[in-house]
């Protein structure tokens, strides 16, 4: 293994270290939080989720203000209007055109202007109950709606079947209207307000109870801890959903009741987690160091223990929000949620289920809203967990 190539003498001089040769090889070091942020940004579903959640919050706050409709305003003449429809056009002998669409579930005709705004319901002649048909007059032209066989047909006097022009998006009610003629979009946004408020407030209540309870148990330790944790153990074997239901029965439906009910019941996991963190961190040397330097209990708790357990707490919080949303909608669904005309995603879904057979599309928006929100919080929670502790990545 001899090396015969000539090596210039300068190479045998001592390595000049001032050139920073040693520094070059070390990778740039990031602080923990910089690293967390970098990992979180690299996680695409999490980033999309953050964007979605921010957008959702903004539209929940400002959306209802921008809408010309209110969440409680009813218009029974324009009930169950779909968000998209096929339009027809009839021209009478004077040349006046009428554009309208047929609601195939309630056999009503609605006039639509050229830009897609709803003008109103078109009054027809008397319904012929035997022949299952109804005549509509457009100027001097008569069109007969024949619903004796489905799908219903529109027949001109000469016997020709009217053909639709094409699909048109409902420009007045972007998401259509519900069975009471309320704008689905604004109710949807209003529902987002309620659902998110319930979720955030209930989560915060859980958070404070959990931190307080778990923090005390973990920090004091010993007998206090044993008793407190035994209580938690008992509570956690109780089926909590049942107790939310019971509390709702006692407190009567309403926004505050549901926040109280969810908030007072689901803090157990948080308490356990905080206690576990604190017990673990208590063993760490820097706590002992702080104690020897004479730091008091409060200071150690707030300056040393909590900041260091913030990661897992954050993840638990993110995961609590979707379950709070879910429980709220669940309660609303079985009739224990907010009271009408207030709306939450749960009540919207449950109202939509009532009209599922005739108007299945009404289920789409609340179901999509709640599912997407659950997706977003789940992805964000997963992303946060991975970013905070890469070892937990699976």
């Amino acid at each position: 293994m001899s090396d015969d190539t000539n090596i210039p003498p300068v190479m045998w001089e001592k390595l000049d270290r001032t050139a920073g040769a040693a520094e070059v090889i070390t990778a740039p070091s990031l602080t923990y939080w910089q690293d967390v942020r970098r990992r979180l940004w690299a996680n695409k579903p999490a980033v999309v989720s953050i964007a979605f959640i921010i957008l959702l919050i903004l539209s929940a706050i400002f959306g209802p203000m921008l809408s010309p409709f209110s969440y409680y305003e009813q218009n029974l003449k324009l009930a169950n209007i779909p968000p998209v429809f096929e339009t027809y056009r009839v021209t009478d002998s004077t040349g006046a055109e009428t554009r309208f669409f047929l609601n195939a579930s309630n056999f009503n005709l609605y006039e639509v202007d050229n830009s897609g705004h709803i003008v109103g319901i078109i009054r027809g002649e008397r319904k012929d109950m035997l022949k299952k048909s109804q005549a509509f007059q457009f100027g001097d032209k008569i069109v007969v709606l024949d619903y004796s066989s489905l799908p219903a047909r529109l027949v001109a006097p000469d016997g020709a079947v009217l053909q639709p022009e094409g699909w048109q998006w409902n420009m007045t009610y972007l998401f259509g209207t519900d069975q009471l003629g309320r704008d689905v979009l604004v109710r949807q946004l209003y529902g987002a307000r309620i659902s998110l408020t319930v979720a955030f407030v209930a989560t915060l209540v859980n958070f404070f109870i959990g931190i307080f309870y778990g923090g005390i148990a973990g920090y004091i330790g010993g007998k206090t801890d044993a008793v407190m944790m035994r209580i938690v153990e008992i509570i956690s074997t109780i089926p909590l959903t049942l107790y939310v239901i019971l509390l709702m029965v006692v407190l009567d439906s309403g926004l505050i009741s549901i926040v109280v009910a969810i908030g007072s019941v689901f803090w157990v996991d948080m308490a356990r987690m905080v206690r576990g963190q604190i017990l673990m961190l208590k063993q760490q040397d820097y706590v002992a160091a702080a104690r020897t330097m004479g730091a008091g209990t409060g200071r150690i708790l707030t300056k040393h223990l909590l900041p260091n357990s913030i990661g897992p707490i954050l993840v638990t919080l993110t995961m609590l929000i979707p379950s709070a949303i879910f429980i709220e909608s669940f309660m609303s669904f079985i009739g224990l949620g907010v009271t009408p005309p207030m709306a939450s995603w749960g009540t919207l879904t449950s109202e939509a289920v009532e009209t599922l057979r005739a108007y299945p599309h009404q289920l789409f928006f609340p179901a999509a809203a709640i599912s997407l929100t659950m997706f977003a919080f789940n992805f964000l929670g997963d992303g946060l967990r991975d970013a905070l502790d890469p070892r937990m990545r699976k």
Partner: protein
Amino acid sequence: MPLYVLQRLGLMLVTLFAIVTLTFFLMHAVPGGPFVSERMLAPEIEAALNAKFGLSDPIWVQYLNYLRSIMMFDLGPSFKYPGVSVNQMIADGLPVTLRTGLLAVICVIALGVPMGIVAALNRNKWPDTAVMMVATMGVAIPSYVIATVLLYVFALRLGWVPTFGLDDWRGYILPVLALSGFWVSFVARLSRSSLLETLDQDYMTTARAKGLKPGQVLFKHGLRNSLIPVVTVLGPVTANLLTGSFVIEQIFALPGIGRHFVLSITNRDYTAIMGITIFYAALLMVMILIVDLLYLWLDPRIKLGKQA
């Protein structure tokens, strides 16, 4: 081991006692109180309630009486339906609820675990992606949405299965799917991550270093360990399947306990709410106990009773 079981039984009794107490006083905290006669009770119910609880007695006497009748497995008469006892209501709905619940648990285990295993063994390949996509959807979409969508598509549109009732086996398909959807996904995700974690363990390397066949390594060394966390959640899963049945039974119009419960809530049938809650709690705790005993058998590290 017997000591551990005794301990657990003791804790269960304490918890049940707490539940009965909590439920009783919660129901008495209802504005006006559940047993107040201004609510226009049918006279025969009032008479029955009076006989049962002694409504004119002070509350703690009523409480003790209630405790006593609970200990004799008597949940009292219904508050709204004359001549019907809560026991009867439960007996009436229990078979349906248990059947759907049990089928759902089987579904969770038989679908969720294999899905997780397939995903973990094909990490970052298409089967993993597919399973994770389905599982993420299952976790994110609420069960009642799944239920209504299933109902709409398969019963109303396609007409493959009946929209309600359990007259033949096809009637069970949708309720069981809707009921177990979330937990199938949850268990799939859990068993995937658990198996991935297990595959990373040193003893798996040891098993491979001993020259064991891949099947031996996976089934003997990998699965047993990775299924432990799955078994631990089966208790809560059973609990949640049963409470989840409130909505599912409602949507599919199944005559189970959940439906009775929701009806009692809308009717404000306080004795029924109270009775069914207590019954549910007891049922769930028995389930959790059974699961925990199973867990004990799976993980020998706990046999010494060091952990509770």
